[in-house]
């Protein structure tokens, strides 16, 4: 029976094959060369558009390309949430997987809602016209201080729940900026992993999207006072951050620093004599796949920040991004292997690639490829040294290296722009004529603007994080119950182990503090 069926099928396929030359293949446009003609230009008289109608179509298409680019790169950045979840969970212990994953999961919806309700308005309510996406100019209310005859923009005041801006460009902008905010939001969950009470995290996630992130974001990307440092004080083009080394990564890194410091180390991390117990993560394959997902998402993060698919500088941006990720990974690996340790250390490889990506995020559009390689190379060494310094000198327990990757290299990326920007791009950036040049290309004032931006980030994000940490501490407390921490947070905090039916091995255990 089965044999009959098979031979019947074979005969049928043979018959179809014999019929091929007889079937007609002439219809259609197999090369695509003839698809899209004058008939596709919207015109009152079909097939005979006027010059105005042709120009209108060209304009519409340009904006359409830009908006498509913004949306698609935004979708890529959204997927970075999966990368963060895997890196953070892979580098922590098996007994906390459900808890760590659940933080990385819920930070997405909670942060998003906070950003929708008021974050977007505070950040972009005063940004002015959306130049690359049709010029919508309704986001025009900035709260501004007038000091010394200059304007200091502090935060936007329109766009709460997107109300009053039922506009395609604003919606595209919201999506793109929302996923950037969520990148910041998910960075501290790594530094605070394995000991943070879930309820405290829950409240934090609302604050980060609604208040912490948008205010600094306004200063750099929403037309605030850091962006206008150039116009007001002739400091280069003001603080320039193409895709968010400071706005996104350093903000996340500084929150991670403050929260990780106040939360204290995991039980068993430090001994009484000051020596350190390693607490190995439970799944390196997971961490490495997560790193790849992040590197992939970064092709949305950096090139997308042009907010324009018609700005062909995106090719330079994309290549610089991948080059810095390569030199970052190679440098951190070799530094661990040959200088600081005895083995190449897979977890530091991941940190190194991410450090290169974070560092190139601000300068990616403004530097040449050699500079991009150099910026990544330095970040790879910097991330290892910073991780040691944070663990051994500051004695802050950061299980995944979030502070070293995002905080330290976010700052380095902003400064690197002030050094290496080569003056081939950025004419008119932040309303200042001429291209963006760094110190090595003759504009020391740009480097000063970068230093001001980095300092402002540390002070503002550090202070507001401290206040919000203390506020949540008063409300619900941050630190998980010590017995729950030793047992693993999965069952006490989440109600279920992440790996059901799996016997935890000794690597998941908490080291004895001696």
């Amino acid at each position, binding site marked *: 029976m089965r044999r009959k069926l098979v031979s019947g099928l074979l005969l049928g396929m043979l018959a179809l094959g014999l019929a091929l030359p007889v079937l007609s293949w002439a219809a259609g446009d197999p090369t695509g060369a003839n698809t899209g003609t004058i008939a596709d230009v919207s015109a009152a008289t079909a097939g005979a558009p006027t010059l105005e109608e042709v120009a209108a179509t060209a304009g519409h298409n340009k904006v359409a390309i830009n908006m498509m680019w913004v949306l698609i790169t935004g979708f890529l950045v959204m997927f970075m949430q999966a990368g963060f979840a895997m890196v953070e969970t892979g580098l922590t212990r098996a007994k906390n997987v459900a808890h760590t994953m659940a933080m990385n999961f819920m930070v997405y919806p909670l942060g998003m809602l906070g950003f929708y309700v008021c974050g977007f308005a505070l950040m972009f309510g005063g940004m002015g016209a959306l130049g690359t996406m049709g010029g919508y100019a309704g986001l025009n209310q900035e709260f501004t201080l007038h000091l010394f005859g200059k304007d200091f923009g502090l935060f936007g005041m329109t766009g709460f729940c997107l109300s009053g801006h039922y506009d395609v460009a604003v919606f595209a902008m919201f999506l793109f900026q929302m996923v950037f905010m969520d990148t910041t939001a998910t960075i501290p969950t790594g530094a605070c992993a394995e000991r943070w009470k879930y309820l405290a995290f829950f409240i934090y996630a609302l604050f980060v999207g609604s208040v912490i992130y948008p205010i600094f974001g306004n200063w750099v990307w929403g037309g605030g006072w850091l962006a206008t440092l150039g116009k007001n004080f002739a400091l280069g083009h003001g603080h320039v951050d193409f895709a968010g080394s400071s706005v996104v990564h350093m903000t996340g890194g500084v929150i991670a620093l403050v929260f990780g410091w106040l939360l204290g180390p995991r039980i068993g991390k430090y001994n009484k004599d000051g020596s350190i*117990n390693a*607490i*190995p993560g439970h799944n390196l394959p997971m961490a490495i796949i997560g790193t790849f997902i992040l590197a992939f998402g970064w092709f949305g993060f950096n090139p997308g920040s042009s907010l324009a698919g018609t700005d062909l500088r995106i090719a330079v941006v994309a290549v610089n991004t991948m080059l810095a990720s390569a030199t970052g990974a190679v440098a951190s690996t070799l530094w661990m292997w040959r200088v600081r340790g005895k083995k190449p*250390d897979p977890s530091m490889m991941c940190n190194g690639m991410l450090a290169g990506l974070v560092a190139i995020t601000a300068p990616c559009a403004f530097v040449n490829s050699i500079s991009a390689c150099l910026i990544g190379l330095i970040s790879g060494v910097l991330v290892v040294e910073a991780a*040691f310094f944070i663990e051994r000198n500051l004695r802050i327990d950061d299980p995944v*290296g979030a502070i070293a990757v995002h905080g330290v290299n976010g700052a380095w990326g902003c400064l690197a722009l002030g050094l290496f920007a080569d003056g081939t791009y950025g004419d008119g950036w932040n309303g200042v004529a001429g291209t963006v040049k760094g110190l090595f290309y003759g504009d020391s004032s740009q480097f000063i603007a970068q230093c001001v931006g980095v300092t402002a980030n540390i002070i503002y994000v550090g202070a507001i994080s401290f206040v919000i940490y203390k506020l949540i501490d008063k409300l619900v407390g941050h630190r998980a119950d010590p017995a729950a921490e030793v047992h693993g947070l999965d069952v006490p905090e989440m109600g279920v182990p992440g790996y059901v039916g799996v016997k935890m091995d*000794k690597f998941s255990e908490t*080291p004895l503090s001696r």
Partner: protein
Amino acid sequence: MKKIEAIIRPEKLAEVRAALEKVGFPGLHVCEVEGHGKQKGVVQQWRGDQYRVEMLPKVKLEIVVSDKDVKKIVQAIVETAKTGSVGDGKIFVSPVDEVIRIRTNESGESAL
């Protein structure tokens, strides 16, 4: 009757089993155990920090045989499980009072 307990390297299990089969003792049971002897574990590296894994995985075989076969079996295990490095394991031999085959209720040497 004697019970032979041998703690050996996990990677040597297949070789030891084959050797036992050759000398005529196919019946045994095996459990995975962890422990350390005087050498105390191995050093690993995590994010640049060295740490010692004190408990190492080993395999424990248990075989019950009549007194006359003990020497042969111990010899077979020592020959195959030995690498000459620290951590090759140990063999313990102890007396067994009684053996009962559950299926037939036989006891003594014929139940082996």
